[in-house]
């Protein structure tokens, strides 16, 4: 075999071997990867709507029904995101059937939050999210006529969370009837 042919053949062989190896690994890990994604979503949903045993996705990545053991609806979870300081601030809002907030989770940096450490990132802290629990309307920061204390030095992020929650509530009230 002359050197030019060998050049082509060796490259071909390398590609084939690499391709088959990757196909094999892909097939092996695919179910596991999908399971991980579902687990991650379910655990996040469970955190904001503790009364539900399982979740049914109604709109992809933005609306879920929480179901109890007998399959009856116990509440809904809505995902919304408004622009903060570094990018969108995704929030998961859990609502009971009366439309009250029962849980709120601001995405962590690993889930795509891009706020500044020490300022906007404090939106993920417990005390901030807890302020929203029990409310059903008029979600706004104190300086905008609402009841929510803004994180000091991070008004933009605080406002993004508040508006995200307000948007979620106003948009999906028709899903709350049992």
């Amino acid at each position: 075999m002359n050197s030019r042919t060998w050049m082509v053949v060796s490259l071909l062989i390398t590609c084939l071997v690499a391709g088959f190896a990757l196909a094999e690994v892909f097939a092996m890990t695919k179910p596991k990867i999908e399971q991980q994604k579902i687990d991650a979503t379910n655990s996040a949903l469970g955190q904001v709507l503790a009364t539900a045993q399982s979740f049914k996705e109604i709109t992809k990545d933005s609306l879920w029904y929480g179901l109890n053991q007998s399959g009856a609806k116990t509440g809904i979870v809505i995902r919304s995101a408004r622009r903060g300081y570094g990018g969108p601030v995704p929030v998961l809002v859990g609502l009971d059937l009366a439309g009250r907030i029962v849980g709120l989770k601001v995405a962590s940096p690993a889930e795509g939050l891009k706020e500044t450490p020490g300022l906007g990132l404090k939106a993920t802290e417990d005390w901030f999210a807890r302020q929203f629990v029990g409310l059903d309307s008029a979600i706004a920061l104190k300086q905008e006529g609402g009841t929510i204390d803004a994180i000091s030095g991070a008004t933009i992020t605080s406002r993004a969370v508040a508006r995200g929650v307000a948007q979620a509530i106003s948009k999906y009230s028709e899903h709350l009837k049992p």
Partner: protein
Amino acid sequence: MTRTKPSRLSYLTTGIIKENPTLILMIGLCPTLATTTSARDALGMSAAASFVLILSNVVISLVRKFIQPSIRIPIFIIIISTFVTIIDYALQAYQPSLYRVLGVFVPLIVVNCIILGRAEAFAYNHGVFDSFLDGLGNSLGFTLLLVVMGSVREFFAAGTIFGKVVTPAWYRSAPMLFMIFPPGAFFLIGILKALVIKLKLDKG
């Protein structure tokens, strides 16, 4: 004058300190600066890169006789990217939380200068076992630096190391966040580099 062949052991050790890929040769700086915001992330990144580095070194050394010089770089890249894709899938499947943090930096291992550099400079003209040792040594050097940087940055910016609380509560209520930002990484690697030069000068 005859040049003595370097000993097996030296293949392993040069990569750790004397020719530390990041601190002495100054290659592979992108992941070093970007993924060392905490000790755990740094360790995850260096483990992933080490896996690729050692295996690509071994495989390239195995098949080096069949690779023509003119097409060696494309073949290196195919081999390296295969391992990177494998580690990418594996992380997604078994370490999803780490994967979310490392994010884009895992695919970027493909173009990590250290890996292509070792393939080109060492594995392409050394035996399998020697290449394995070289890959292992360089991996250890890379890991050492990343974990040191990750620990120092996490210590200052969060008051913890590997998530373990090591500072009093008053410090953690207002830690030095500077270290978690990119300038902190630049200043830290500058300081480490200066220390290494100082040690070298003192040794003569």
